[in-house]
């Protein structure tokens, strides 16, 4: 197999979708190469689980085709798709031992006994489950059970894509980190494509080479963690990724440059004035705002200590702007001025970025 292709996927859970809101997935086309680590990131209800279930075949899309390499798999049931899926809540077969759980997918496919034994032991060793093979699966902790669900995917030699649907939700915080590193390690070891669905930006950014950010049934941006951070294509991405999220400030355009409450803001891209009534905003991350000797005069509203840095909430008129200041840097005492880093300040029209490429 060589990668996954989604062509014009639309999906609705209703029989006769009418308005735009009836569609859980509005229009999605994607191409993923073989062996990559991808994350689907978005808030609850953005359609990421629906998209995952369409790829695995648990849901048939209302419209569009799913391709695995050069094979159209839209009509093929999940057990014949060379995929495995790990769910939010660990699924184990309670009455079976850990060994039987891992052997189950192979037994169902009629694999010879000797091969099953060898394969199960190999995977159990990979997942550190060897000591527990003869124990009843129902007696394990949540992270142990989640390893079993993952193991049932790994034992099958035909599996090319492993999908994770928020797999760390029920795992204890201190084990989350361990399990996440384990996944990353397995990805390098096994080499199969992994798709990871989550609403947690840390999980997505640390796991994936490429993150797909979804919002209200559409893909708003596909990019590496760095791209998502430095040039969010949509104000939603700016908001959703980063802590705190990007400052999104209403602005006007005058002579190709954005004007924020009467103050001209320097940016690298020239903005045409022909934006025709679109809602215009400036987006700048708190990381790229700094105090300076001149610039926009602000008043400091609140200081939150976040450990290594402080989050400063400032105000100019009714506009609130957040910025980050290192822990040991002094704050300006009376009159404060701020400036934005021109290389990381973007202008958005109706939520979408205006850059050299899109115009």
């Amino acid at each position, binding site marked *: 197999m060589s990668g996954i292709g989604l062509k014009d996927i639309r999906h609705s859970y209703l029989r006769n979708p009418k308005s735009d809101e009836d569609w859980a997935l509005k229009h999605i086309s994607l191409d993923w190469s073989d062996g990559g680590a991808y994350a689907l990131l978005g808030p609850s209800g953005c359609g990421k689980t629906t998209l995952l*279930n369409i790829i*695995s075949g*648990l849901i048939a899309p209302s419209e569009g085709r799913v391709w695995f390499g050069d094979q159209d798999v839209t009509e093929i*049931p*999940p*057990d014949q798709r060379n*995929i*495995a*899926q790990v*769910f*939010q*809540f660990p*699924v184990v*077969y*309670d*009455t*079976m031992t850990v060994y039987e759980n891992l052997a*189950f*997918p192979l037994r*169902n*496919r009629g694999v010879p006994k000797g091969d099953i034994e060898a394969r199960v032991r190999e995977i159990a060793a990979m997942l550190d489950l060897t000591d527990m093979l003869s124990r*009843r699966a129902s007696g394990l902790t949540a992270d142990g059970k989640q390893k079993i*669900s993952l193991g*049932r*995917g790994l034992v099958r030699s035909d599996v090319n894509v492993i999908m994770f649907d928020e797999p760390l939700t029920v795992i204890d915080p201190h084990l989350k980190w361990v399990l996440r590193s384990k996944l990353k390690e397995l990805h390098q070891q096994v080499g199969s494509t992994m798709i990871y669905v989550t609403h947690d930006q840390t999980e997505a950014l640390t796991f994936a080479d490429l993150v797909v950010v979804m919002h209200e049934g559409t893909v708003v941006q596909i990019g590496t963690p760095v791209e998502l951070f430095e040039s969010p294509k949509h104000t939603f991405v700016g908001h959703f990724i980063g802590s705190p999220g990007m400052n999104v400030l209403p602005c006007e355009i005058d002579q190709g440059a954005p004007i924020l409450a009467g103050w001209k803001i320097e940016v690298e891209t020239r903005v045409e004035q022909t934006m025709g009534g679109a809602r215009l905003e400036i987006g700048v991350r708190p990381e790229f705002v700094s105090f300076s000797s001149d610039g926009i005069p602000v008043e400091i509203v609140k200081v939150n200590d976040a450990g290594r840095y402080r989050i400063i909430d400032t105000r100019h008129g009714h506009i609130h702007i957040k910025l980050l200041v290192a822990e040991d840097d002094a704050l300006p005492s009376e009159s404060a001025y701020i400036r934005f880093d021109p290389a990381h300040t973007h202008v958005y029209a109706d939520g979408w970025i205006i850059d050299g490429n899109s115009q």
Partner: protein
Amino acid sequence: MTGKTSNQKAWLFVLPVVVLVAFNALIPLMTVVNYSVQETFGDNVFFWEGLRWYEEVLHSERFHASLLRQITFTSIILLIEVPLGVAIALAMPRRGPWVPVCLVLMALPMLIPWNVVGAMWNIFALPEIGLLGKTINSLGINYNFTQQPLAAWFTTILMDVWHWTSLVVLLAYAGLCSIPAPYYQAAKIDGARGWAIFRYIELPKMKRVLTIAILLRFMDSFMIYTEPFVLTGGGPGNATTFLSIDLVKIALGQFDLGPAAAMSLIYFLIVLLLSWVFYTLMMRHEER
């Protein structure tokens, strides 16, 4: 016991429950115990008999016969109702407009008073005028439940299955509905089909509710009285005289209060013992 405060006031709070349990369980039970060790001829005159009634009941052929009938009946209805109930529950839709329709249809038999069920089936099965009896006879089979023991058993069992399978269905259905969708999805991906899904997902998840269903059906069927009393009256002959019917015959028919009291205590202990055995067996299996 150091470090614990002792507070006698607690008794005051427990008192209402103690009184309630005393009046609805302990006192009636002790009255029966009292009867079971004495002989009376009325007028509140009692003679001490010791364990004589117990020995008599335990050695009586009549008691053995009704106990055997009772065990046979309960075994048959459990063997029919549990698998049938699970099968119906599996066939019922999990969502959609038919769910409430199915649930109401299933609950209907259980809402009918027991004596009405007996009367309904009595008329339903009458060979000359009943729909069931007439139909069977018109098929060329000689069927008359008031005269043939086999026909009487068949009718009684059919009636109980009609009346109580729903209980198993509803409990099993509740168990099935509580299985999260990912279990089925994971099984699908793992390549499991029909029987494997039932054996490894549905049955284990239904185990708790099925334990309760079996226990309830065991206890209820072991104590069955009203329906067969109205349907067959324990006949023909003694063919459908189950334990409770026999007990009522001895206590209220013959007014042998002593033996009847001894028998009811033995009866009670049998139900208690068998329920305990059932429960421990099923729970032990669960823990393993």
